[in-house]
């Protein structure tokens, strides 16, 4: 039993050992949190639908290292974001700035909604008019309707 316990302990220790050479900033949780937050806002250009935080691409590794270095150098979040935009363009931002080139991106959905609502409104109005404007049945029509209804009542 004692031997088994020892073996278990050793197995656990063996698992813990590699954790020692993890990220150099792990000792500083605040900085590590900033790194995670920043890299979640930045798009990895290699696998374009992943953020730098999620991506395992080498470039993402390099960029995380760069961001880590800038955090250690005391750069502000804005300076770090500007560094990335200067090199890779607005495309790296998951939250792109509002400007002429991104106008359609920001206003497009709103525009579609306005057009959709306008069309819906027009449609409803037309339907309403059709329903209310309907003249009462003429005698001829009433007779036909009656006949049709009776027909279905027959067994």
């Amino acid at each position: 039993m004692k031997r088994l316990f020892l073996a278990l302990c050793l197995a656990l220790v063996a698992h813990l050992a590699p954790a020692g050479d993890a990220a150099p900033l792990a000792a500083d949780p605040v900085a590590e949190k900033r790194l995670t937050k920043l890299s979640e806002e930045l798009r990895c250009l290699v696998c374009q639908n992943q953020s730098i935080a999620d991506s395992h691409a080498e470039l993402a590794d390099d960029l995380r290292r760069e961001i880590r270095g800038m955090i250690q150098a005391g750069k502000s979040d804005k300076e770090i974001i500007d560094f990335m935009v200067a090199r890779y363009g607005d495309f790296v931002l998951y939250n792109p700035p509002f400007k002429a080139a991104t106008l359609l991106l920001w206003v497009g959905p709103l525009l579609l909604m306005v057009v959709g609502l306008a069309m819906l409104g027009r449609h409803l109005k037309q339907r309403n008019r059709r329903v209310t404007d309907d003249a009462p049945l003429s005698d001829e029509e009433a007779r036909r309707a009656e006949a049709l209804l009776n027909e279905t009542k027959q067994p």
Partner: protein
Amino acid sequence: MNRFLWPLLGFIALVALLAVGLNLNPRDVPSPLVGKPAPAFALPVLAAPDKTFGPQDMAGKVWLLNVWSSWCVSCRQEHPVLVEFAKRASVPLVGLNYKEVRGDGESDMSKMSPEAEGKLARERADQWLSRHGNPYTLSVLDLDGRVGIDYGVYGVPETYVIDKAGTIRMKHTGPITPDVLGGKILPLIGELSK
């Protein structure tokens, strides 16, 4: 008739929009560096380890900076085009060898000293150039990819056209095809060289 006309037109417009969208190349991200000065660097020259080269050495010249690596498959694809270009070239073509060792995805960098990495990089780069031909006026080694980051490199190969004032005038991401060379790069060089 009218009842179906508008939905049909809407459908056609949507198909046209999607067709255009699907035919765009998602890798073609416009570079913010076009129109900006080429970022400065001083990197060791492949053929002369004790010398460094930087964009400032090319002041007054129109030149091309091509990012390559021996592990990069698309580089092999564009290489014959570059070799052909170099034979007739009127402008220098500088190679930026990008992360030759640590970029191959196999090397364990934690066990390699910087000297060993530099040596291995030179061996691999030299071997690749002697096998496939060397179109470069000179190549420099960017072992850790830092200069690559300054140039916004995200997919090797990439090529930059830089003018006499040291301003980046064009960036091409991906392999250079004869079409790109003849249709875009050569005319631009001609215009800039005037």
